[in-house]
């Protein structure tokens, strides 16, 4: 056994806990998970059946953690997992799964398949079978501080631009602020309007906030690739910065996996609870709305619908807030079929967007989103994840659909009551 395979098998063993053992014990090969997966529904290829993507992990569980399996292996009845097999499974585990977790919602015996994919990736990465794109992103995240290679000067330039052009104040390294905002590289590079939007909203609502120059990146490639050591290091940077600035809460931006990383995996990765709260920007804005601190005027006239980012809604629990918010600024807000906790993924989550090899497949399965959008004849699409956003735009273009995509925070900011106007609506 090669050293890398040995590392991989060891990581698989480490990844197996009670839930995993229970899930594998329960699977009856009914195939229902296939119908929940856009990679299956849009291709009809049975190899994309979610539970099949876990075959290497299942074999390690059976051989290492079942009475029967240990003997079967000793007598040569059950073959150990090979390096070739892991190579074969690499595309199934990384290219054709966004860890959206839809399958976990329909499995009749209750298997949380996405939970197991996350764990399978630990073994795959340790065995050296992770996609190049994700390896590069993880390396940049550790060495540069951002998976896209965005450095502090780039953020500073955007901040300067926003402060000069729009006359906004964007506090950096403000000690004792209530909130510390994280950003995704994609927001800094592609959607700086998000930064402008929070600056305007927080100014109006009189919220004390800051951005840390030491830990502004919200995304976590370590989770997408499946290397907990990297994931923990990236979380620790945020924790250190939040503690240094003594903030009450850290705000996760419009990015699905960033939220999963810091809100739900974060404390578990570093092995201790946080001394601060973690909130998604949707939760913060909805709280401001509830407190009457979010004053808006006018409504969007066109028919708008909302795309739930998987890690924020189904896997993250932020479901009502974006709807409450959209309703105050949209006249004709319609829900797509299966919206909310059963929403269909954009196809680019879970590191798929960082993995160029998966591009063609990703665009093919976007057909699922197209059907969902067609059903409501939406004239505008709003979401709360810049990764979803950029790949929704790409998918819509590929399918010749002329539907503008916007971030919810910006949509709210566009309807803020301007200072001096003072109108209550």
């Amino acid at each position, binding site marked *: 056994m090669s050293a890398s395979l040995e590392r991989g098998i060891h990581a698989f063993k480490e990844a197996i806990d*009670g839930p995993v*053992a229970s899930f594998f014990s329960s*699977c009856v090969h009914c195939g229902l998970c296939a119908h929940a997966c856009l990679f299956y529904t849009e291709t009809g290829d*049975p190899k994309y059946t979610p539970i099949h993507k876990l075959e290497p992990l299942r074999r390690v569980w059976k051989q290492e953690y079942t*009475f029967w399996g240990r003997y079967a292996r000793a007598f040569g009845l059950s073959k150990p997992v090979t390096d070739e097999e892991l190579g074969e499974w690499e595309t199934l585990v990384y290219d054709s799964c966004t860890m959206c977790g839809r399958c976990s919602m329909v499995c009749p*015996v209750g298997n949380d398949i996405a939970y197991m994919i996350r764990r399978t990736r630990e073994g795959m990465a340790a065995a050296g079978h992770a996609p190049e794109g994700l390896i590069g992103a993880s390396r940049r995240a550790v060495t540069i501080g951002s998976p896209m290679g965005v450095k502090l000067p780039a953020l500073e330039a955007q901040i300067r631009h926003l402060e000069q052009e729009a006359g906004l104040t964007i506090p950096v390294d403000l000690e004792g602020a209530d909130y510390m905002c994280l950003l995704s590289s994609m927001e800094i590079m592609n959607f700086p309007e998000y930064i402008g939007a929070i600056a305007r909203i927080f100014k109006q609502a009189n919220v004390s906030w800051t951005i840390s120059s030491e830990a502004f990146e919200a995304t976590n490639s370590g989770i997408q690739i499946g290397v907990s050591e990297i994931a923990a290091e990236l979380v620790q940077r945020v924790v250190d910065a939040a503690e240094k600035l003594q903030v009450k809460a850290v705000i996760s931006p419009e990015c699905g996996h960033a939220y999963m990383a810091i809100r739900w*995996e974060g404390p578990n990765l570093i092995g201790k609870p946080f001394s601060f709260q973690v909130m998604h920007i949707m939760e913060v804005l909805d709280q401001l709305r509830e407190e009457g601190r979010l004053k808006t005027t006018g409504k969007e006239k066109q028919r708008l619908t909302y795309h739930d980012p998987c890690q924020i809604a189904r*896997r993250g629990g932020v479901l009502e807030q974006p709807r409450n918010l959209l309703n105050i600024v949209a006249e004709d807000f319609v829900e797509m079929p299966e919206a909310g906790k059963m929403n269909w993924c954009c196809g680019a989550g879970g590191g798929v967007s960082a993995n160029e090899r998966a591009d063609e497949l990703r665009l093919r399965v976007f057909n699922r989103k197209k059907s969902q959008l067609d059903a409501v004849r939406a004239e505008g699409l709003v979401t709360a994840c810049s990764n979803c956003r950029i790949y929704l735009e790409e998918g819509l273009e590929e399918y010749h659909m002329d539907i503008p995509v916007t971030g919810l925070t910006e949509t709210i900011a566009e309807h803020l009551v301007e200072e001096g106007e003072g109108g209550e609506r």
Partner: protein
Amino acid sequence: MMTETQLLVWLRGPALQVAIAIFVVGVAVRLLEVLVLGRKADLAEARGSAVAGGMRTILMRSFPDRATLQRAAFTEITGYIFHIGFFVTLLFYAPHILLFNSALGISWPALPTPVIDATAVVTIITLVAVLIHRLTNRVMRFLSRFQDYLVWLLTILPVVTGYIAFHRIGVTPPILIAIHIISVELFLIVFPFTKLMHAFTLFMSRYYNGAIAGYRGVKS
């Protein structure tokens, strides 16, 4: 050489006891294998209750969401029918209740025999349909291994042999009953080593699934 009666006595006595012992010990070992692995405490701040979420999913996962029901109607509907049919014939046929009563000392009302008879027929037809579906459906055939067909056989055999014994088709009744009991003992013996275990582990799986989601404030 054993007489038919001696065979029946042996099957109903020592053989059944051994089968039940393997079943009980085997199931206990398999459940312990899962439980000893355990689960680390979640250090993230909870949004909802893990326990409530787990309990909810144990119950609610018995009912599919509407879209899944439409997308996989055959799997869903046949799944319900054969599971319910299997348990109705097992638990509500008068002679079975007598057996449970003699072993466990508890009793409950039986369903009229014609109802059990019809249920058995429906269950058998459904299980045959389930097998054909497994052999012809792309996803199911792709996923299926030897064990999937083995457990199908072990599930249908008690129902078929029971039906034949009741209607006294073919050889003498003691032999028919003997074959029926053998099929049940086979089912019990193989149960802990196969995915028949799902009958027990699904409660743990649903709990874990619902607890993970419930902790985050999601109803799974």
